């Protein structure tokens, strides 16, 4: 039961000949909520993409659920929430986009069945978008689009949820809505979460473990944020106060316009 969900052994990734991720070793165990922190260019998103097989790793080994990435086929156990919405999906409805999450569980040429419809309805209800199922993505706010991406990942009924900067580009109130959502979700579904964050924000309470990357190397691996915080280089300057404490985020969002 306690076998690692993600197992990284000396993983190095290069993009265009440049080393981006260097020699990362870490195991993520079931039920952990792991934040991958680091400055821009620290390699956190590249490492995430390597875990998903979207970029090849040049050295070391990556295993998902004990299976080497190259031979891993059980992708329904993994739910991916990308940072950006592909503009090609703007004309589709929320239900259609969320429905693509069911594809690993469906056979070609067979229309979706009752279980697919139930899983989609459940995912939509969990992110509080049940009343928007027939709305086009282009008519949604930034926060609703983010929740659509989460519902799409949930429709797969995953065990591991992989999220790329879910807090980027949405206002503070939406960030807190997302944090509340994630708290409920991880408990209800018993999810293991690997999330890339630029700053912990309202997710700070959820995170059980932090991996801090600097120049592609793992410089901190431990519980929560408190211990990682002395490395203040990864915090944007507007949040660094004269205190060393984390400045709590305020639910006023006038300084952070909604994206799009």
């Amino acid at each position: 039961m306690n076998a690692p969900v993600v197992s990284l052994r000396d993983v190095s990734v290069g993009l265009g000949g440049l080393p981006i991720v260097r020699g990362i070793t870490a195991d993520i165990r079931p039920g952990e909520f792991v934040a991958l922190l680091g400055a821009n260019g620290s390699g956190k998103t590249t490492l995430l993409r390597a875990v998903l097989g979207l970029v090849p790793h040049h050295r070391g080994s990556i295993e998902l659920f004990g299976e080497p990435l190259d031979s891993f086929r059980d992708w329904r156990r993994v739910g991916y929430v990308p940072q950006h919405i592909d503009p090609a999906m703007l004309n589709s409805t929320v239900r259609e986009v969320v429905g693509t999450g069911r594809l690993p569980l469906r056979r070609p040429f067979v229309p979706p069945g009752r279980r697919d419809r139930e899983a989609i309805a459940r995912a939509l209800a969990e992110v509080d978008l049940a009343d928007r199922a027939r709305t086009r993505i282009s008519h949604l706010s930034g926060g609703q689009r983010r929740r659509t991406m989460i519902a799409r990942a949930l429709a797969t009924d995953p065990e591991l949820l992989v999220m790329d900067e879910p807090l980027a580009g949405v206002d503070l109130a939406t960030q807190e809505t997302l944090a509340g959502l994630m708290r409920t979700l991880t408990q209800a579904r018993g999810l293991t979460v690997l999330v890339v964050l630029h700053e912990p924000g309202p997710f700070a309470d959820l995170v059980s473990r932090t991996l801090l990357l600097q120049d592609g190397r793992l410089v901190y691996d431990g519980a929560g944020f408190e211990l990682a915080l002395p490395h203040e280089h990864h915090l944007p300057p507007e949040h660094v106060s004269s205190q060393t404490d984390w400045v709590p985020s305020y639910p006023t969002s006038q300084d952070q316009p909604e994206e799009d």
Partner: protein
Amino acid sequence: MEILTYPFMQRALVAALLTGLIAPTIGIYIVQKRLSLLGDGLGHVAIAGVGLALLTGTAPLPVAIVVAIGGAILIEYLRQHQRASGDVGLAILFYGGLAGGVFMSGLAGAGGLNQYLFGSITTISNGDLVMIVVLSVVALVVSLGLADRLFAVSTDEEYARTLGLPVGFYNYLIVVLAAVAISLSMRTVGLLLVSALMVVPVAASRNLANGFWHSLLLAMAIGILAAGGGIVGSYYWNAPPGALIVLLAIGVFVASLPIGTVLTRRRRRSRLLPVAEEIVPPPHQQVEQHPHVHGGPDCHHPTAQHADHVDYLHDGHRHAMHGDHYDEH
């Protein structure tokens, strides 16, 4: 309806309705992938196939299909493997197709290339029709049966990869289906205009429909309407059917613009519910009294840069100086 008693008109109508049905079913993925001009290019490549057939004295349709599929695979390979120079590579392939086709048909001494460029209702043989029907049914079954998967691949390729879908295979499948649909349309719409039948009905239906499936079905309906109308019109006006088909489709597109605006406004209005994320800026809160001036020598409150000013932290909140008073933030 006496025109339906002519066998050549019956063949032309069946062929046109089928191509009107298929072209948008595949075009919808081409449009989503923002490859709207791919159809044009494949049409040019198919012209080389027609030229080759005229030169060798074989049936144009099968040769055009084979050459167009070969071109489609080459184009997709270029797109997947060398993105940087792909643009120029495509352009050369397209011009080469058209030039090669015109040159080879000239060598063959056949003056009939025009009928393949803009369609011709009188030239569809029984053999052509059988091939059109069989391949149309196959293309329709594949594109509709795999619609969910092709939709996922064409809307979010990276996510589709993380679902474990064979994204590369589906990308090839889309362009091969496009090559088949284009070649089948050469007798009705013609190879120079067929791309419009893949793109314009989809563009029109996207203005009107809500979502992918809705717009797929509507695009098929618009395609059938334009193709059928174009064939009948070309009989009466003795004009090349391709031109009429495309003009009809564009007419529907133009009409869809104002209708779509009204529909969208109505849909939005029916959904004007309170949105949880809508942010109301906090009221202009002032602090009544303040014992000292922040930033002065006796101030020990921690500071935080907040947009264009400095906030001072105390008693669990932030505030900043605003003229002669402090605002709570």
